[in-house]
């Protein structure tokens, strides 16, 4: 019973999700691209295998155009099929490209016809299944099952859904920590400035900036970049204060520094 408390919240959001999705689904009773095609093929009143895919594609693309003006959410689901059909249509219209080793327009059309036929078959199978006599509607189980004995055994139960939800909950817990920058590989300018202040006293002769980088910050590329940038910014700051001199032979040449004697 206590369990209901925490699973209730998830169940609610499932319902919310369902209702959110049915908004898209309920448009004119259409559910998806193939669904629409089935309807279109039926209005052509011909064998699915013999329909003009070209004509179908035209009608379909027309529908998507109209649908887009009505509901923008609809388009997202339909557009992939529309793009595919537009491609198929262009294939059917243009002479085959001999250098293209992809499937021919005929193959694509045949596959589409197969998909349509298979979906139609599944629709019919689903209808036949639901038309069957069903338990609790057409036939019934014993209304008063007898579990006679007083011998009481407590069993604990959990469903697979409970198990998966529990695991999902644990695994996503970590994802909810507040957003913080990962500072493992970041060397700040303040840190570099502190370091250099102590070191410039010994920089009587020109020395490469890179030689001032801290130990362990030159192997990992991320650390190297970060510490180089921090130290570069720091020496600029020190030069501005007139504590050091900087020089660079040419563009991209090593930057060198030395203590500026007063």
């Amino acid at each position, binding site marked *: 019973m206590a369990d209901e408390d925490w699973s209730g919240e998830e169940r609610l959001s499932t319902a919310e999700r369902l209702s959110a*999705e049915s908004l898209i689904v309920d448009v004119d009773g259409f559910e998806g691209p193939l669904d629409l095609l089935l309807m279109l093929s039926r209005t052509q009143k011909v064998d699915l295998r013999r329909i003009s895919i070209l004509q179908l594609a035209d009608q379909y693309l027309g529908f998507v155009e109209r649908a887009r003006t009505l509901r923008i959410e609809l388009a997202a689901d339909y557009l992939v099929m529309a793009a595919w059909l537009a491609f198929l249509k262009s294939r059917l219209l243009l002479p085959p490209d001999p250098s293209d080793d992809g499937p021919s327009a005929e193959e694509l059309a045949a596959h589409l016809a197969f998909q349509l036929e298979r979906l139609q078959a599944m629709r019919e199978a689903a209808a036949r299944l639901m038309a069957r006599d069903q338990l609790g509607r057409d036939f019934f189980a014993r209304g008063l099952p007898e579990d006679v004995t007083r011998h009481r055994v407590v069993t604990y139960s959990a469903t697979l859904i409970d198990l998966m939800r529990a695991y999902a909950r644990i695994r996503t817990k970590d994802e909810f920590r507040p957003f913080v920058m990962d500072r493992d590989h970041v060397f700040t300018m303040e840190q570099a400035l502190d370091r250099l202040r102590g070191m410039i006293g010994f920089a009587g002769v020109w020395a490469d900036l890179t030689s001032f980088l801290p130990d362990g910050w030159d192997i990992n590329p991320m650390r190297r970049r970060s510490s180089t940038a921090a130290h570069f910014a720091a020496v600029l700051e020190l030069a501005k204060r007139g504590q050091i001199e900087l020089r660079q032979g040419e563009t991209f040449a090593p930057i060198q520094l030395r203590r500026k004697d007063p």
Partner: protein
Amino acid sequence: MSDTSEPIERSLFEAPPMAEQERMVEAILFASAEPVTVAELAARMPHGCDPAEALVYLRKRYEGRGVTLVRVGDAHAFRTAPDLGHLMRKETVEQRKLSRAAIETLAIVAYHQPVTRAEIEEIRGVAVSRGTIDQLLELEWIRLGRRRMTPGRPVTFVVTEQFLDHFGLESARDLPGLKELRAAGLLDNRPLPGSQQSPDEDEESPAGQSELFED
């Protein structure tokens, strides 16, 4: 350990006569709302009983009655005769209305099992909405099957005994029109032409394609 005592017990008490075994099976099945397997029957009946044989007699006895003995997978149950459903209106439990997507998904799982989510989407031509599979799992009409031994090792779905029980099927082989659909090649998983060139990715191609439909 208990095996050693078995022969002694048997020699002391013979198995009850078949008519008596039939009564026992009748009582156990009548008392249970859920189908009971032969193994469960055997476990509850005295040593040496043959519930499978008793079931044959019992089934015959109830032929044409208001209550009949049906088989559900490996198990058996008493159910009211379907032609008397109209008398039971009072007992009807308000059933959750399944969405069209859920019904189609259920049919695809039943006819194509074991089937992956990607395959379901390939057949339906649209993404399977998140709640749909959830709902069928919660109804305990489908469950997870073995993972498919293809790249990504996707989970598969199969129908359950509860599904068979609900739709009055002895086994998934008894699905209406199964043979015809198979003969017509409509249960084949035919990949999109052109995706064959790379056999490694072949299995993945329906998945890759249907991901395009995902939001």
